[in-house]
């Protein structure tokens, strides 16, 4: 069969830590890169906010920012946060760590391909980092890179910056194509005995749906990226009207990928919250099968909604209504998911540990994000709101709540299992409440800036008469951002200190039922000792009536006597 076991025999520093094919080490390598980039992305955001609050003053470390540099900050902040923070942490780190452990496998089905994917991502990171230091600076055509601005170097003055930006993204796509193939095949092929599809935990379902979404949606954008690279270097005319091309082609190809991409980022974090809520309510998740159905339906619908990003982009106006309807339809499965999460709290026995706080933070903030999405989904309202700070507020309430609140729910919940150490609770609580408060201080007033007509990606709001009276909001949002960045310091201290000297963690600190808690913390090589666990129960057997404990691990002995609700 696979020669996975043979490779794992050689134990040296190299194969254990650097060129390791162990899915847990690869997960930590993705996490490390994601955390590096989150610091860079956060500092870029800080610089942007400083320029917006006090235009043309000296930004610490960067000096005075001109409009070109501001456009570069906007572009790189967006690109880094979506592709180099959200994807590696939510999909790369947790997908790699959780999928084998939660389905009872020893490792990914292709360990070497898995290692190749993390090193391709490292190369992509290197290329993106290098693009900051090439002459002309990094990309500055927006994270969406609309041509003709991005198609001709003369329009932005950036030549190598955008070429490396395209190359970096292409490498990142290749890395997650390999990762996605690995995730899907592992889950289809390597499930432990008894781990039927109906017993696979929801976070694994969400990771797989996200991987499939990415695999099937990235294709046209790869074609588009090659076209853009050829337009910039070989003088082809895909996006230049004088040669017969059309700038709208890029927008269609980009958003055909763009919308499924935001679900690729959302679903894993949604999976973390769907795992955390039952554990800390000691109650099964509400509607396990319906949640899987809703996720798959939402994934399918996400392929036919993309043009709601293009209502006023010059696209044929008759297309707006069909896409407005599909956008409305996709809000239905997510409405189900939100209500199912709320229903999970009903008649629970809720404990407010740190992972639960983050999960509840995600639930509430994501509801805010989802509701403002209805404004943008309606074509007439989007005439006014498109391209304003209302959109910036909307996608921070959805993306930020996903990556930060959802992501931190996962980090605080699985840190004991990943590193075998317990995180400090006090620092965790401080980190949560500070982040929650300053997140809202920063992004809630942006709705008002958007309603007042502030357009996106402008370096100096004081150039617009209508915005001068609202400048205090920009100052408030900047103070919010600086405090939000400072609020991450407790987390940094907590994670470093606990990783090195934290109290050792038990195998199952949260008394959870899923398989990864049946393995030691941190799990050894090949996860399970001599025998892979055999699964007898569903993933959420909490507070089963008539049982001494309020939880039953998935691999605990089958019910001796016949039960009324016998777990399938």
């Amino acid at each position: 069969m696979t020669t996975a076991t043979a490779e794992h025999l050689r134990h040296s520093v190299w194969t254990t830590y650097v060129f390791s094919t162990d899915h847990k080490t690869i997960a930590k390598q993705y996490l490390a890169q994601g955390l590096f980039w989150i610091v860079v992305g956060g500092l870029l955001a800080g610089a942007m906010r400083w320029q917006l609050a006090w235009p043309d003053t000296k930004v610490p470390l960067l000096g005075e920012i001109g409009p070109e540099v501001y456009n570069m900050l906007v572009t790189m902040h967006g690109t880094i946060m979506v592709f180099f923070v959200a994807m590696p942490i939510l999909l790369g780190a947790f997908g790699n760590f959780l999928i084998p452990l939660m389905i009872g496998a020893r490792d990914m089905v292709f360990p070497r391909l898995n290692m190749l994917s993390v090193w391709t991502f490292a190369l992509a990171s290197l290329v993106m980092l290098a693009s900051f230091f090439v002459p002309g600076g990094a990309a500055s055509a927006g994270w969406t890179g609309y041509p003709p601005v991005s198609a001709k170097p003369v329009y932005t003055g950036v030549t190598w910056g955008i070429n490396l930006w395209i190359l970096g993204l292409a490498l990142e796509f290749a890395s997650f194509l390999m990762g996605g193939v690995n995730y899907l095949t592992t889950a289809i092929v390597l499930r432990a005995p008894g781990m039927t599809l109906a017993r696979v935990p929801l976070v694994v379902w969400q990771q797989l749906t996200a991987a499939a979404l990415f695999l099937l949606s990235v294709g046209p954008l790869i074609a588009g990226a090659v076209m853009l690279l050829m337009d910039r270097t070989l003088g082809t005319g895909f996006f230049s009207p004088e040669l017969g091309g059309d700038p709208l082609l890029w927008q269609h190809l980009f958003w055909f990928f763009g919308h499924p991409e935001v679900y690729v980022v959302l679903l894993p974090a949604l999976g973390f919250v769907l795992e955390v809520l039952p554990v800390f309510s000691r109650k099964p998740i509400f509607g396990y099968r319906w949640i899987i159905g809703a996720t798959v339906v939402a994934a399918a619908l996400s392929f036919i909604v993309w043009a709601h990003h293009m209502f006023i982009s010059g696209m044929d106006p008759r297309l707006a209504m069909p896409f407005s309807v599909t956008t409305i339809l996709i809000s239905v499965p997510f409405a189900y998911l939100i209500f199912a999460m709320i229903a999970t709290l009903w008649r629970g026995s809720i404990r407010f540990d740190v992972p639960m706080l983050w999960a509840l933070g995600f639930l509430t903030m994501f509801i805010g994000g989802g509701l403002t999405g209805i404004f943008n989904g309606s074509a007439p309202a989007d005439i006014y709101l498109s391209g304003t700070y209302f959109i910036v507020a909307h996608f921070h309430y959805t993306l930020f709540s996903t990556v930060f609140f959802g992501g931190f729910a996962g980090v605080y919940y699985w840190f004991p299992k990943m590193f075998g150490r317990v995180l400090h609770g006090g620092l965790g609580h401080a980190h949560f409440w500070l982040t929650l408060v300053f997140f809202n201080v920063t992004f809630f007033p942006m709705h008002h800036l958007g309603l007042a007509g502030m357009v996106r990606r402008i370096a100096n709001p004081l150039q617009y008469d209508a915005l001068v009276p609202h400048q205090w909001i920009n100052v408030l949002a900047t103070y919010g951002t600086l405090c939000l960045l400072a609020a991450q310091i407790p987390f940094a201290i907590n994670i470093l200190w606990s990783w090195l000297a934290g109290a050792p963690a038990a195998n199952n600190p949260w008394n959870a039922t899923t398989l990864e808690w049946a393995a030691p913390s941190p799990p050894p090589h090949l996860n399970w000792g001599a025998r892979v666990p055999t699964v007898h129960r569903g993933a959420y057997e909490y507070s089963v009536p008539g049982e001494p404990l309020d939880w039953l691990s998935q691999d605990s002995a089958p019910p001796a006597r016949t039960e009324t609700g016998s777990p399938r």
Partner: protein
Amino acid sequence: MTTGKPHPNYTAIWLWLMGLMGLGVAASFLPGGRTLAVVVVFAVACVKAVLVAANFMHLRFEPALIYALVLIPLLFLVVLAAALLPDFVWHSVSR
């Protein structure tokens, strides 16, 4: 190791492919309206593609999961093409 599935007659399939290619090229020289030639040419191309996929790629013997992996992308591509039509085929004025 691999399941001993019956093998289609590969040589016959290859001959069919050669013949169809010849037909396709010949069809492109059809006089008269282009639409007939275009329809024939693409019908031939589709038949060739199905022949290769079903026989050489053993799609005929694979379980439903593999079929889904081929048909789902094609469905999304039809949706993408359909949505591009209004903008690039029926658009109003373009210099």
